[in-house]
């Protein structure tokens, strides 16, 4: 029963090539948009989640968990408080702690955040699928006034190893108080990671101390009290505080226990977060946009199908004779219904395939450009199960939008029989 219907539907569609192709094009474009939005959505989520990996806990002064994540990982906003060096020293000595990387924020270089840290940063920090940082040029800082810059910093400011840079106090692009008395030398350039590391300038914790050694209560030195760079070298540059600590544990099983211990630490009000959990909270908070985008693309698909239904309804009148002939040779009203549904479903299936092909072709073409310009690796892969499900839904929606004209044709063939009333 279905084989003749399929062949009839196919021939009928081929007969109306122009309409069929336009309909397919409209729906295929909408499918490309739908899958594209979905791709960007999952890509953004992945790249978001990939920003930090391999770090089991992030410790900062007590405050909001998302705030801690934002300033420690995304380098957005500022910490309201620091962790004392003493607390850090105790924490790093806990038996569960495998490694710890303190970071100290608060300075900037031409709009890029300066991160004071230890050499462990380059060793332990991971992004994406536990990828380690690597150097495009140079190496981790060795001297007090060495700096390691991220890939974006190097590209946007045109820095190479050996260039001298001046840091500024505060995070603004035009910070007025500059540390121009203690210039730094670019000692290493990190390879692109697609994370905020690309937009950071890394120096040692001692360097952060050094540039502030002559400052008093967060103000620049008064005239006559300034300490020269050379003099600073000779001083004890023991940090008094850090902004946050990235912690790796010997066993991830211990994460909750250590987190609890940090949060109930008696000597100082501290907060420990599990980066994955807080990332998810943050994503949930900003996820409204992605949902809106997705909703819009779904609307576009629906619009495509409404167009198809309209075309199909319009053709119904001129197809009454055809339906009558089919009835006369024994087609059942149900088969007339199926014929129209199969036609719409077939168009939708072809459109879904074309749409997916256009998207993947587009990604394939755009990938080198996007990678080089934005440092964003477009995920190609095959169709995910979710995308396949979306495509399946598109085909179902096609059948559903064929159902209205099909039902009308069905009703008519019941009522008219083989007569065509004119």
């Amino acid at each position, binding site marked *: 029963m279905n084989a003749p219907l399929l062949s009839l539907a196919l021939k009928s569609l081929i007969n109306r090539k122009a309409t069929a192709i336009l309909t397919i094009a409209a729906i295929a474009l909408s499918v490309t948009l739908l899958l594209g939005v979905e791709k960007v959505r999952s890509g953004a989520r992945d790249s978001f989640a990939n920003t930090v990996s391999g770090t089991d806990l992030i410790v900062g002064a007590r405050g909001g968990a998302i705030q801690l994540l934002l300033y420690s990982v995304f380098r957005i906003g500022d910490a309201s408080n620091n962790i004392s060096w003493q607390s850090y020293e105790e924490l790093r000595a806990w038996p569960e702690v495998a490694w710890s990387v303190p970071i100290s924020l608060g300075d900037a270089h031409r709009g890029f955040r300066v991160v004071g840290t230890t050499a462990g940063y380059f060793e332990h920090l991971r992004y994406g699928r536990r990828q380690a940082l690597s150097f495009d040029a140079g190496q981790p800082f060795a001297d007090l006034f060495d700096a390691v810059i991220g890939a974006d910093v190097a590209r946007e400011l045109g820095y190479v190893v050996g260039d001298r840079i001046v840091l500024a106090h505060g995070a603004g692009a035009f910070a007025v108080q500059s540390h121009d008395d203690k210039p730094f030398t670019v000692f290493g350039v990190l390879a692109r990671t697609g994370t905020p590391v690309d937009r950071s300038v890394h120096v040692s914790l001692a360097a952060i101390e050094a540039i502030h050694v002559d400052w008093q209560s967060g103000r620049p030195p008064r005239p006559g009290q300034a300490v020269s760079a050379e003099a600073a070298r000779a001083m004890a540059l023991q940090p008094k505080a850090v902004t946050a600590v990235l912690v790796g544990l010997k066993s991830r099983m211990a994460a909750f226990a250590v987190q609890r211990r940090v949060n109930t630490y008696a000597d100082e009000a501290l907060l420990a977060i599990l980066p994955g959990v807080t990332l998810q909270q943050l994503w949930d908070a900003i996820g409204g946009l992605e949902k809106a985008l997705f909703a819009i693309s779904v609307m576009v698909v629906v619009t495509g199908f409404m167009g198809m239904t309209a075309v199909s309804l319009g053709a119904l009148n001129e197809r009454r004779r055809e339906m009558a002939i089919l009835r006369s040779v*024994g087609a059942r009203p149900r088969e007339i219904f199926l014929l129209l549904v199969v036609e719409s479903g077939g168009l939708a299936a072809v459109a879904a395939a074309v749409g997916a092909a256009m998207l993947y072709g587009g990604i394939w073409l755009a990938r080198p450009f996007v990678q080089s310009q934005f440092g964003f690796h477009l995920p190609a892969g095959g169709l995910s199960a979710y995308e396949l499900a979306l495509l399946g839904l598109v085909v179902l929606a096609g059948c559903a939008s064929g159902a209205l004209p099909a039902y009308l044709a069905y009703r008519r063939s019941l009522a008219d029989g083989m007569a065509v009333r004119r």
Partner: protein
Amino acid sequence: MEPECQSAVIQAEGLRFRWREGEPDVIAIDSLEIRRGEAVFIAGQSGGGKTTLLNLLAGVLKPTAGRLCVLGADLAAMPNARRDRFRSDRIGFVFQSFNLVPYLSLLDNVLLACRFSPRRRERIAAAGSDPATEAARLLARLGLDVKALAGRDVARLSTGQQQRVAVARALIGRPDLVICDEPTSALDADARDAFLALLNAETAAAGATLLFVSHDRSLAPAFDRTIVLSDINRPGEAKR
């Protein structure tokens, strides 16, 4: 139970049909019988219930009341799906015009009748042929050269050619009954006479009963018997 259906091709008693409850009957035929092998001309004006009667005889519409036996089967008692199968197996149909599905080839239009009917395919196989060969044979008998017309868009065939393709479709697989609804009204006089001769000859060769409906009584002499529809159908009278 109603009495068994007889061997007559069509046997109707007290046949009533109306489109909706409360509307007058469109068909009210007390008695109609058509015997096997007959070629019957039914003369009827438009609006006289002609098309409705044909839809009833073909099992597309279901009688509102009465008994209707077609080829020994009680159509009034048959479920919808079986009536559709019955029609595709046993009845060939030729319309007034535009008999062809525009997106199917000449041959596919003829084969369409076999697609929905296993019985027609079986009959062709039993005669030692296959549907495509049989279709070509019928078309050739009807004066259509399949090879010459094969690539032609069916909508561009002449009306006479289209009607002959429709006859081939009606006859393929040897149905028992061929019903024609004004098949010649779009033909000019010469084409009409040739068409009638072919139709009669081929229907007889296929052993089918022919039911030919037209408003044009000048065609009546070409048939065995004439039934004037207005003589047997009294629409709107039989109010119950």
